[in-house]
């Protein structure tokens, strides 16, 4: 339990550092922000992988083996490198900003340091956001769980891919009926509460549009308008692996859902109450960030669609504002 608190504390400290780096003189320091994002990712992995009954968890993290818990040395497990198939949450949650094809001329590429930070920071932040949003996803869970066929994956890795979409579209989430149709679909995840199949997680597709249609389509290929890369065979085996443990946890956690959702949000929310209710300047910055698109005036600010943002809970809004 103390590892979770420690990890949570480190997550909030890290996010604070990234936030403060925006106002530092001399511009955003790429090196420092890279290191902070690595810590953020490790802390979040530990946070999510620590099976603690007190707080709701979305199942083990993407790593196949839960890291051993040693006192004072929470092992983050093999960290997913940046170079790996990008963390699904990152891509799914934050569609890539429009990046003009920039020849690497010195000043023209200058937007990149800050964009980089956002990019680099986004992935772990996306994951962090998913922890809270996984809770939202869970709320929809029971209906789909009942609808799930035998072959469908359980909650193991559902924390990342499905959660964001679920959070964003709690109302738009297709009813259980629609998902039942998708339950038999080959692509895993399509049946889960309006989540796109895992293959789509790696695409920078605007997630707001996808889930609904995908549920209807039921297949990983996705409808037009939701570009989905080719099948990713890697994903499937991983899900099957996590199916068993995740499923158990999922079933066990269902009863505690609503209580823990509030719990989780209050914990994360309180950490960021300072950020959200910052001076008017800070608050204004966040609004500006939300409203301007990828071509934001503030460098590296936003890479999310507007409609997506409005549906998020305040905590992930704070992260997006980075």
């Amino acid at each position, binding site marked *: 339990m103390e590892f979770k608190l420690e990890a949570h504390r480190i997550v909030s400290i890290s996010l604070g550092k990234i936030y403060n780096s925006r106002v530092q003189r001399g511009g955003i*320091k*790429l090196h420092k922000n890279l290191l902070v994002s690595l810590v953020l990712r490790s802390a979040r992995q530990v946070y999510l992988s620590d099976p603690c009954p007190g707080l709701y968890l979305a199942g083990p993290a993407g790593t196949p083996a839960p890291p051993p818990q040693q006192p004072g040395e*929470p092992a*983050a497990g093999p960290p997913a490198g940046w*170079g790996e198939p990008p963390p699904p949450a990152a891509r799914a949650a934050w569609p*890539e900003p429009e990046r003009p094809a920039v020849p690497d001329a010195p*000043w023209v590429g200058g*937007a990149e340091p800050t964009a980089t930070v956002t*990019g680099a920071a986004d992935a772990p932040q996306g994951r962090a956001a998913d922890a809270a949003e996984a809770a939202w996803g869970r709320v929809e869970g029971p209906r789909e769980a009942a609808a799930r066929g035998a072959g469908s994956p359980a909650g193991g890795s559902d924390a990342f891919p499905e959660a964001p979409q679920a959070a964003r579209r709690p109302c738009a989430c297709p009813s259980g009926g629609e998902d039942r149709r998708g339950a038999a679909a080959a692509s895993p995840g399509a049946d889960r509460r309006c989540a796109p199949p895992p293959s789509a997680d790696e695409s920078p597709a605007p997630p707001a549009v996808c889930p609904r249609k995908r549920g209807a389509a039921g297949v990983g290929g996705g409808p037009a308008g939701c570009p989905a890369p080719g099948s990713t065979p890697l994903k499937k085996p991983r899900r099957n692996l996590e199916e068993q443990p995740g499923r158990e946890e999922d079933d066990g956690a269902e009863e505690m859902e609503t209580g823990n959702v509030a719990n989780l949000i209050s914990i994360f929310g309180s950490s960021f109450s300072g950020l959200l209710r910052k001076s008017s300047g800070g608050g204004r910055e966040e609004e500006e960030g939300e409203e301007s698109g990828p071509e934001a005036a503030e460098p590296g600010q936003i890479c999310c669609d507007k409609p997506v943002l409005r549906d998020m809970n305040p905590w992930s809004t704070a992260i997006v504002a980075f």
Partner: protein
Amino acid sequence: CGLLCLAASSQHGVLRDHPGVPSTADIISTVEFNYSGDLLATGDKGGRVVIFQREQENKSRPHSRGEYNVYSTFQSHEPEFDYLKSLEIEEKINKIRWLPQQNAAHFLLSTNDKTIKLWKISERDKRAEGYNLKDEDGRLRDPFRITALRVPILKPMDLMVEASPRRIFANAHTYHINSISVNSDHETYLSADDLRINLWHLEITDRSFNIVDMKPANMEELAEVITAAEFHPHQCNVLVYSSSKGTVRLCDMRSSALCDRHSKFFEEPEDPSSRSFFSEIISSISDVKFSHSGRYMMTRDYLSVKVWDLNMESRPVETHQVHEYLRSKLCSLYENDCIFDKFECCWNGSDSAIMTGSYNNFFRMFDRNARRDVTLEASRENSKPRASLKPRKVCTGGKRKKDEISVDSLDFNKKILHTAWHPLENIIAVAATNNLYIFQDKVN
């Protein structure tokens, strides 16, 4: 070796308006001896360069030999604003590197985050007098008044040291410059930022070659950045650069124009038992320095310095713990940002000793041959002229002995990031925030 405090701390910012209250601009950000050791250059956060010169031997003042006094002060860089990105460019001097002396003047390169400048420091101690067309004040004389011609003669004047910028190497770096290094050919030099290394010719300012590019096609996949780079002291085609992942790559410019593929890759396998949230941060290398011989190189990460044999890539030949007692405090150091401090390291002239800084104004010296190390403190109380420095000790646990300092009472605001060792003698320069200390080995 007993270290004698030779020059009582010469306050770097003594010319500032508020000597009692150190301003941020006075914080020393780089220290570097020139090739002969007679000149010592310091750069600060305010963009100023102060050069100290060693006093020559003087029979009437036998003890004055070895004292460093201010030789020249000039403003190297000013704060700038990048209108395109709405970013301020700090004037802080990140690095100074001297060029080998070729004539009476001295040349050095100084750089901030974006722009490198070549400065010429020259002396003027003579002045021409007796002009025909103008009088001593410089006013033009009335031609009708000139009745005779004379030849102007040179008369001595008070020594004046002038610094003038001879070259400005700008607009070549998208990211923040962290290193510059003069090549052994004395014609080219490299500059490194977080993702790229450029090769310059000292005479050409409008062009540079990019020789290393670590920028990934997709910035979201960024995994490591360049933290330091240096040319080999003798082989003009060899350079090394360190990364935030704790690795060092050695590149040979003869193999290809773009040195993205390294010739050697130095990495020590991580000890899995010591893994923590901050493993990646503390393994990031903050400085890399070749030995004078060119056979070894030294890397500094947060807790240790490692000496590598260039012929062995698998692991260092020596590892010296600088302040291992901080390993259990990493979370606090992360909170107060100290974990991001970039400590430098340096060799002595004979490569038999290495030195690096720590907190509480402590610095550490490691004698490689005798396998001994010592912790010393740079502070006003301990630095009376000609007083010996007393070794310090940090108490890591248990009962604190007299004269020991406990880990919890260390002052983490007093950090020694920059040190330099005279290339030939046992004289060291230690920068403690805004103060510069110069210590010399005791000579009996």
